[in-house]
């Protein structure tokens, strides 16, 4: 079984991203939306942590949130719109939103 973990809190003052990465299963993926996309900000600890997992981590981002914040995602990250978000929620066995 696979889980899509959805995060929307800024990584700079919040433990959700680090906790999520600790308990992430091999088949799991992360979707960053809202302020969680700030984790892609260059030269930050969050970005370095994610980049270090580029080979093994399936990372998705909600396109509108990245564009709204004028962030440039790295090549290895996949961008989705709302139809893509729905597709991911079908493709993965369950969705765990870190409220």
């Amino acid at each position, binding site marked *: 079984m696979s889980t899509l973990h959805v995060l929307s809190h800024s990584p700079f003052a919040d433990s959700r991203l680090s*906790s999520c990465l*600790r*308990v*992430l299963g091999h088949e799991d993926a992360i979707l960053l939306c809202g302020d969680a996309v700030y984790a892609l900000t260059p030269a930050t600890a969050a970005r370095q942590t994610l980049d270090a997992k580029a080979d093994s981590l399936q990372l998705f981002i909600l396109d509108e949130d990245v564009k709204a914040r004028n962030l440039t995602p790295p090549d290895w990250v996949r961008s989705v719109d709302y139809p893509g978000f729905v597709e991911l929620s079908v493709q993965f066995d*369950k969705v765990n*939103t*870190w409220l």
Partner: protein
Amino acid sequence: MPHSLLIISRQPPWSGPNAREALDIALAGGAFDLPLGMLFLDDGVLQLLPLQSAAQLQQKDLTANLQALSMFGVEDLFACHTSLVERGMSPNELSVEPIQVLRDHEIAELIDRYDQVITI
């Protein structure tokens, strides 16, 4: 087969209704005899500290409700070892039992076993 649900409670006990409202989901499901589990993660493990005094803050006793989970049919209780250690808590001195203390990789397996998850 009914769908199983894991409730991950990661809010501290005295910061508003979050901890209680996570617990209420579990209690409501237990009343329907549904397959439920509850995992305490991050600040959620602070709910498990012994000898808390709800009366000091004029609150209802959350610990008593947590201890009643098994009576309501929610017997699969888990706590995150890393979260406990981070907060200087001993896995052997928790106010709710029986509770299984899990390592990070075991939590990944736990989430995997359930059909749906709610993380509050």
